[in-house]
């Protein structure tokens, strides 16, 4: 098992940041695949060539017949299978670590800004907004300070889902590959006809029954891992669908003023929009943005996407890409965390006028990011 420590160390980190099903999958990988392979299967296949006997005295015939019977040994095949099946998790881990680093950088920036704010003391309104923005980012980027855990949201969730999909594909590919190469069971007798063997020669495989036991075992564990991966996909997909349903249910009541009153939190989220984006919404004379709240999700999506694109253009210029997405997706939480400071009343009332537009865009973003 010491030889597997290189991979084992990396996967330990993945273990910390996986879902429950993911942790079960990793445990199955460690115990039923790596450990069994390293301790039992290796010694069972240890003498596979030295005890591969052919009924001939022709020099070289045993070599070529062994090579024909076993183009790649089962053990090496399983080693490659384990490595390729683990690789997508490493990619996800890389992304997660990148997220953590970005989070740390953001926090450092926030600390710097607060220090600057204390030094300057002027324009507190903007400073408050910025710090609230930073807090929103912190909450919504997917990093939970208290638990030290990564929360699956947005692009990180997508990476996780893709990694599971690729893992499933690899698993299926290797199971099919094993079937194509060897079938399911090993036969005791292998009849070989290959130069320099002078005629078809009987060759006898070493320990076929013991090997069959391990082959069936490893196949069963592979199928179990496949099942766990599919279960994890289903679990994530179900959660996402549930959240989408609950969001569209919340979005259905139509009266605009009612919406304004019932969701002041959403509006407060809008208050954290940096001025350029807000002005962008303000300046758009397009009637589409002020479409009434219909239940036609498609048309809402269209207007929302249009708004999103325009906002994105501004965002990229401002260099605050991730923020807007995140805040719109989780507006209630943002509001609860960042208690709104005393905003001037006029600002709030202005916001009311254009809240429809921003809400339309928020709908699209929440769909993008919901789990």
């Amino acid at each position, binding site marked *: 098992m010491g030889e597997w420590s290189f991979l084992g160390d990396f996967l330990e980190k993945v273990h910390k940041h996986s879902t429950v099903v993911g942790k079960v999958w990793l445990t199955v990988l460690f115990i039923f695949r790596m450990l069994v392979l390293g301790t039992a299967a290796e010694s069972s296949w240890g003498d596979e*060539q030295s005890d591969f006997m052919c009924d001939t005295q022709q*020099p*070289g015939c045993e*070599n070529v017949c062994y*090579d024909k019977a076993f183009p*790649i040994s089962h053990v*090496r095949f399983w080693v*490659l299978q384990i*490595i390729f099946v683990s690789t997508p998790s490493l990619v996800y881990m*890389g992304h997660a670590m990148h997220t953590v680093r970005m989070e740390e950088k953001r926090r450092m920036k926030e600390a710097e800004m607060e220090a600057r704010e204390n030094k300057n003391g002027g324009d507190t309104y903007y400073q408050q907004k910025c710090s609230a923005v930073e807090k929103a980012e912190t909450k919504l980027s997917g990093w939970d300070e208290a638990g030290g855990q990564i929360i699956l949201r947005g692009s990180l969730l997508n990476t996780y889902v893709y990694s599971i999909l690729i893992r499933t594909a690899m698993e299926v590919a290797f199971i099919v590959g094993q079937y194509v190469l060897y079938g399911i069971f090993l036969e005791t007798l292998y009849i070989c006809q290959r130069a320099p063997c002078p005629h078809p020669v009987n060759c006898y495989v070493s320990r076929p029954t013991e090997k069959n036991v391990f082959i069936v075992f490893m196949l069963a564990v592979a199928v179990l891992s496949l099942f766990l991966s599919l279960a994890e996909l289903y679990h994530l997909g179900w959660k996402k669908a549930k959240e989408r349903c609950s969001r569209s249910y919340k979005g259905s009541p139509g009266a605009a003023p009612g919406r304004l009153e019932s969701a002041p939190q959403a509006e407060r989220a809008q208050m954290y929009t940096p001025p350029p984006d807000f002005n962008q919404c303000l300046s758009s004379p397009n009637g589409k943005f002020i479409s009434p709240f219909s239940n036609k999700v498609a048309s809402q999506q269209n207007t929302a996407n249009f708004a999103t694109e325009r906002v994105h253009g501004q965002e990229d210029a401002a260099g605050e890409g991730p923020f807007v997405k995140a805040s719109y997706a989780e507006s209630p939480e943002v509001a609860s965390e960042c208690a709104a400071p005393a905003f001037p009343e006029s600002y709030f009332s202005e916001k009311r006028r254009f809240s429809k537009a921003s809400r339309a865009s928020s709908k699209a973003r929440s769909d993008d990011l919901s789990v």
Partner: protein
Amino acid sequence: MDWGTLQEVLGGVNKHSTSIGKIWLTVLFIFRIMILVVAAERVWGDEQQDFVCNTLQPGCRNVCYDHFFPISHIRLWALQLIFVSTPALLVAMHVAYTRHERKRQLKNSDKIDIEQLKNEKIHIRGPLWWTYTSSIFFRLIFEAVFMYVFYYMYDGYQMPRLVKCDAWPCPNIVDCFVSRPTEKTTFTIFMLAVSGICMVLNLAELCYLVIKICMKEPRKTT
């Protein structure tokens, strides 16, 4: 072969690498060193015992094996991995030297904060940039050289099933049969592919560093 020591040393370098450097290190450990230790060493384990020649002449098998396999694939890969990892040690030494200098400066100014010094992130700038870039350059050179050596020594990347040998003391041209040629070819191609991937990663890192420094220069001058 104990690769744990190498892992410890390179783990330290990992902290000061770029993201691409970290990916390269992961690929190195999982797809090369681990495959070498767990799989390839066993495939090549019986390469001389099961190298069979169609002759009863004593000594003929030995000389034929030696003639066709001057240095085993496994040893060549181990050398390749060591040479390719070594430039990273240059970076580690430079970082250690920088830290040492920083510590000396702080001591002189009576502001000692060892913890801060330990955790201080050293950015890849100035002389460290040159060390880092030249280490990547040397890595690329070593990879290319070893890939060529493999190609030259074994006439391509495929392991032949049958080799014809007429080295002395073999009395005539003797058929010799290599053990597990298909499996060996599979792993040779696998290691070659991963070497290629590592070279691509190194090139990408080199480009990234050059672009980064070029972008910083105009900003400095404006």
